[in-house]
């Protein structure tokens, strides 16, 4: 029994100390962003590896998610004779929920894990220490550009995911199942609200980009500098990011769409 409370205390304390370290880390990273702006080359290189290299997985997943939505939506809507509403159904589920959430989950798996492993290995091979001894702040030179690029790339990737998904829904619904093309697009245009749907979706993806980049970079920076430590940190990035994305999605949805 005493053991149980001892362990509970230990876990709570280490949890709080990690929260403290990560908050302090975030403040350092944010203050380092000002030194990234005068050197766009650092940012462009990271935008490429975080954003452009995630392009393929986002595009293909978006296409399939959109096609599945088209199929499932058609079967349900056609029971009620409402298959013209397929376009609005596909688009609003993508823009409001699936776009930001699934793109963020994929982003955490593709780019987040890569960031953690990269930073963790840089720590393990003393590259970060080496920079400190050369009087170069690794937060400013290495971490802040990666954070900023994750933060900028995520909304763009989510928008890409949703757009490709809408095309996927069109392929499944209109081209394969014969929904009227005019009503697919016009219902979508008429019923999707820019403020309520699109802006809220973008806000979500900005929040997710911020959180996933933060988690990924902190886990790498805080990793135990051994091969096992880096591998655990990479796993934690994916797991913690998934939790954070889904929990935040609920909170944001409740704030944006629910009357809670």
């Amino acid at each position: 029994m005493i053991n149980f409370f001892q362990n509970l205390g230990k876990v709570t304390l280490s949890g709080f100390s990690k929260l403290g370290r990560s908050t302090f880390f975030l403040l350092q990273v944010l203050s380092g962003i000002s030194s990234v702006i005068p050197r766009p080359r650092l940012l462009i290189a990271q935008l490429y590896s975080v954003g452009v290299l995630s392009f393929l997985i986002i595009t293909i997943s978006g296409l399939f998610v959109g096609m599945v939505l088209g199929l499932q939506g058609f079967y349900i809507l056609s029971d009620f004779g409402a298959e013209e509403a397929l376009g609005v159904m596909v688009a609003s589920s993508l823009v409001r929920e699936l776009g930001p959430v699934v793109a963020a989950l994929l982003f955490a798996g593709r780019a987040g894990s890569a960031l953690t492993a990269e930073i963790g290995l840089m720590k393990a091979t003393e590259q970060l220490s080496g920079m400190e001894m050369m009087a170069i702040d690794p937060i400013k030179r290495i971490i802040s550009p990666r954070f900023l690029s994750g933060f900028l790339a995520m909304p763009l990737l989510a928008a890409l995911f949703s757009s490709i998904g809408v095309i996927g829904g069109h392929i499944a619904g209109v081209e394969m199942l014969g929904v009227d093309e005019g009503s697919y697009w016009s219902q979508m245009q008429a019923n999707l609200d820019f403020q309520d749907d699109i802006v809220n979706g973008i806000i979500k993806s900005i929040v997710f980009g911020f959180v996933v980049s933060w988690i990924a970079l902190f886990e790498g920076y805080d990793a135990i500098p051994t091969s096992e430590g880096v591998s655990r940190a990479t796993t934690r990035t994916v797991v913690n990011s998934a939790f954070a994305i889904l929990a935040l999605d609920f909170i944001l949805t409740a704030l944006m769409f629910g009357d809670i």
Partner: protein
Amino acid sequence: MDNSVNLNSDIVSIQNVSFSHGSRKIFDDISLTIQRGKITAVMGPSGTGKTTLLKLIGGQLTPDKGSIEVDKENVHQLKRADLYTLRKRMGMLFQSGALLTDINVYDNIALPLREHTRLSESMIRTLVLMKLHAVGLRGARDLMPNELSGGMARRVALARAIALDPMMIMYDEPFTGQDPISLGTLVKLIKELNNALKLTSIIVSHDVKETASIADYIYVLSGGKIIGQGTPEQIKNSDSEWVQQFMKGDADGPVHFHYPAIDYQNDLFET
């Protein structure tokens, strides 16, 4: 920067420093000084905290007790910006080289110059090529760090460490895992650079022969204490059994071959 002034003064002064890592005490009230312009070696078996000592001097770790002064400045009382200014005058060669793996040799050496100076690219090019020439790797400028052998990586790291013309260089186990040719090259380079650039060198190592061949003064560490010090000659003739065992590499002596355990016979027949 004129490094030749006050050749006889101490550049690093460590006073009564204690440091623990978790519950393990690594240094127990040690004091030592490093003379300007000389090659000073800190020797001792693995795990005695030799690398920790360099990190304390560089301000990456903070001692529990005691003070460390580098060039008359107390490292652990400096503000962050001042510490970074001081570090520009200290080079450090890590055991792994610590080169950035995503940029090539040339850019690795140019990095501190680009970060800390406002020199033009053509000036930086000249400096980088001079540093690379000094370590014999001018032709390797376009290689990536993963294309270098261990010895070459250390020489590139050495070129990077001298890029900003520091007043001293700290070498962390520079000889470990080197083939005989790389070893000879590194020993020669460390000695020549120290004299030619009027540096101060601190070598942390357990490679007795190589280190003793170039060091002006040696400290021997064990169990958190300094157990021997002097010129290589004095250390060789030390009357401490421990120092003798370490210098000669005997398997048994004050440091036992066997890790502490219960009696062998009892252990075997224990049911």
